[in-house]
């Protein structure tokens, strides 16, 4: 039982990483009708940023302030990924609005380029990042059951991101504009919303969130050039289950894939667990082909 609870908690922390990665994806998919396969590579970019920040701290600063690297890493991984996302949107994504299938293939090409770039710069073997010392311990609850602080911290980070995005989307003028463009691009443009700017800003924020997720990933596993590929499929499943453009959907999807996946894996094996969760997704989509919390749209074709 304790082992199962432990596993369940691991599932929650997988979910929180999926959530951070999927938030950006769900919003950009809903907003621009663009599938970004290079989203996983933004996780990788965030993770490598954390790695570099740590290296720099070890090399140039006294050991006493080492733990502070984690704050710098979190901020920088968001920033670097966001800037890269902004450039990508301006150069490529902009030409692909509404061509979901094409955008999927183009961004796949970009992800190949980014992966190879990571391989050229950092080498193929995985690298490790040491978590700050105050996250090394774990919270003992009862007997065998103990929750590592790292995973609790990631969970808090994810909740923080979720509320940040919620606040941005529903409590600011920018967010109102984003939702307006999502619902009816032409009408929003006619009413004076600069849709191009909204698109780049949203895409950059989404990429930044993925970078943040990547930074969080470094504390619970090794990172390598193929990090993105390992997560991209699960992240997309999250968006598909939840429904594009919906925050609630992303939360539900992340929970479903993360916790459901780990629970299935606990009772069966890792590979059978994956099959079962896939079957569940297909079954769910039988009733709601556009995701559980799909944004309502009265258009027949989209």
């Amino acid at each position, binding site marked *: 039982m304790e082992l199962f609870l432990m596993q369940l908690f691991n599932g929650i922390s997988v979910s929180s990483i999926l959530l951070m990665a999927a938030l950006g994806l769900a919003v950009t998919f809903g907003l621009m009708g663009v599938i970004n396969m290079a989203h996983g590579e933004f996780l990788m970019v965030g993770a490598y940023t954390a790695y570099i920040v740590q290296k720099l701290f070890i090399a140039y600063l006294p050991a006493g302030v080492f733990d502070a690297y984690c704050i710098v890493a979190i901020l920088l991984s968001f920033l670097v990924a966001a800037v890269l996302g902004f450039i990508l949107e301006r150069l490529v994504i902009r030409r692909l609005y509404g061509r979901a299938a094409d955008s999927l293939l183009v961004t796949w*090409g970009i992800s190949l*380029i980014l992966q190879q770039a990571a391989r050229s710069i950092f080498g193929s073997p995985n690298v490790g990042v040491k978590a700050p010392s105050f996250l090394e311990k774990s919270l003992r609850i009862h007997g065998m059951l103990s929750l590592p602080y790292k995973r609790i911290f990631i969970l808090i980070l994810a909740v923080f991101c979720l509320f940040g995005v919620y606040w941005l989307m529903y409590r600011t003028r920018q967010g109102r504009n984003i939702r307006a463009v999502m619902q009816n691009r032409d009408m929003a443009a006619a009413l004076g919303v600069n849709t191009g700017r909204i698109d780049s800003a949203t895409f950059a924020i989404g990429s930044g969130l993925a970078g943040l997720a990547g930074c969080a990933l470094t504390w619970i596993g090794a990172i390598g050039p193929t990090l993105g*590929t390992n997560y991209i*499929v699960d992240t997309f*499943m999250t968006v598909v289950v939840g429904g594009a453009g919906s925050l609630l959907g992303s939360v539900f999807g992340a929970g479903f894939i993360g916790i459901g996946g780990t629970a299935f894996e606990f009772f069966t094996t890792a590979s059978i667990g994956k099959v079962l969760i896939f079957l569940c997704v297909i079954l769910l*989509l039988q009733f709601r*082909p556009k995701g559980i919390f799909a944004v309502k749209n009265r258009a027949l074709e989209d």
Partner: protein
Amino acid sequence: MKTMKKIKGTTILAAVIFLLLAALPFYMPMFRVSLFGKYMCFAIIALGLDMIWGYTGILSLGHGVYFGLGAYCMAMYLKLEAAGGNLPDFMSWSGLDRLPAAWVPFGNPVFAVAMAVAVPVLLAVIIGYLTFTNKIRGVYFSILSQAMAMIMGTLLIGSQAFTGGSNGLTDFKTIFGQDIHAPVTKIVMFYVTLLVLVLLFALCRFLTGRRVGKVLIAIRDGENRAGFAGYNTANYKVFVYALSAFMAGIAGALYVGQVGIISPAEVGVVPSVEMIIWVAIGGKGTLIGPVLGALAVNSLKTTASENFPELWSYFIGVLFVVVILWLPGGVISLKEIPGKIRAKLRLHREETSSAEEKIPDKTAVRSK
């Protein structure tokens, strides 16, 4: 008149490609002939993918699964024949002492070949039925198919004792009693693959020329409209999806004999997307384009990875971006470029000449 000419041009191209392939063993070393045998298997997959993507508008990122199923069915037979009545080597390494029941019938070559075709088709019908009849469409389908490819990979690696894990199935010795490494066997396998490719090409040609093909194109261009016109679009989609799985399965079965190994690295997410690029580069929506694309991209890949493996990933990545953004019709559409330039020039000339007239007669411009 123009369409007549177009059809003729691609037919000539197809004939030239197939003739060049048929004559290949006479002007290429044995090693290259085998490689081209492999490329032709890929061309068969590309043809099937083109039927669902180019003609019907369904983008599947999971065709590695069907290719893999066909290949593994055939490989199981080859492995059993190589083991010669004993337990295959990887099974004894992973601690099995008896042949699993699912493996037993694969000792029979006819059963294995039948399964290499039947299993992919069956899975495609089930998956297609579950998704298409419930209107899971567009990128939602693409993402699900990609998840399927990922699962296939993990399943194969996870069940080491039954599938050979990440090493896959290899070390074959004979095929239908013949030495698999003998030049004669290789030549025969090459021509069998070519024959299958030509036959399937003809089948696709036949289908796209008939009403079925027209309905598929109608589904691509406006699925709801095709539905309103009285066609059960889901049935057509399941059919064409199963057809492409059938072709991928056959390609897999042909592949194993010639390449001598099948492993999860050839069926997962990455190879499945790579299959799409063959079609995109060759030209989706034409039949000869994908064949050409598969042959050309893979020849390039072999040359590139022999000389500079580092650059290949960059190259294929850039190729994806360039082709989809600026050449959506693939290399086949290159032949239209002179015509387009001529049309532009003519338009330009007309514009300048009408500007010289300096008569702002709007109706005259409009009538043009």
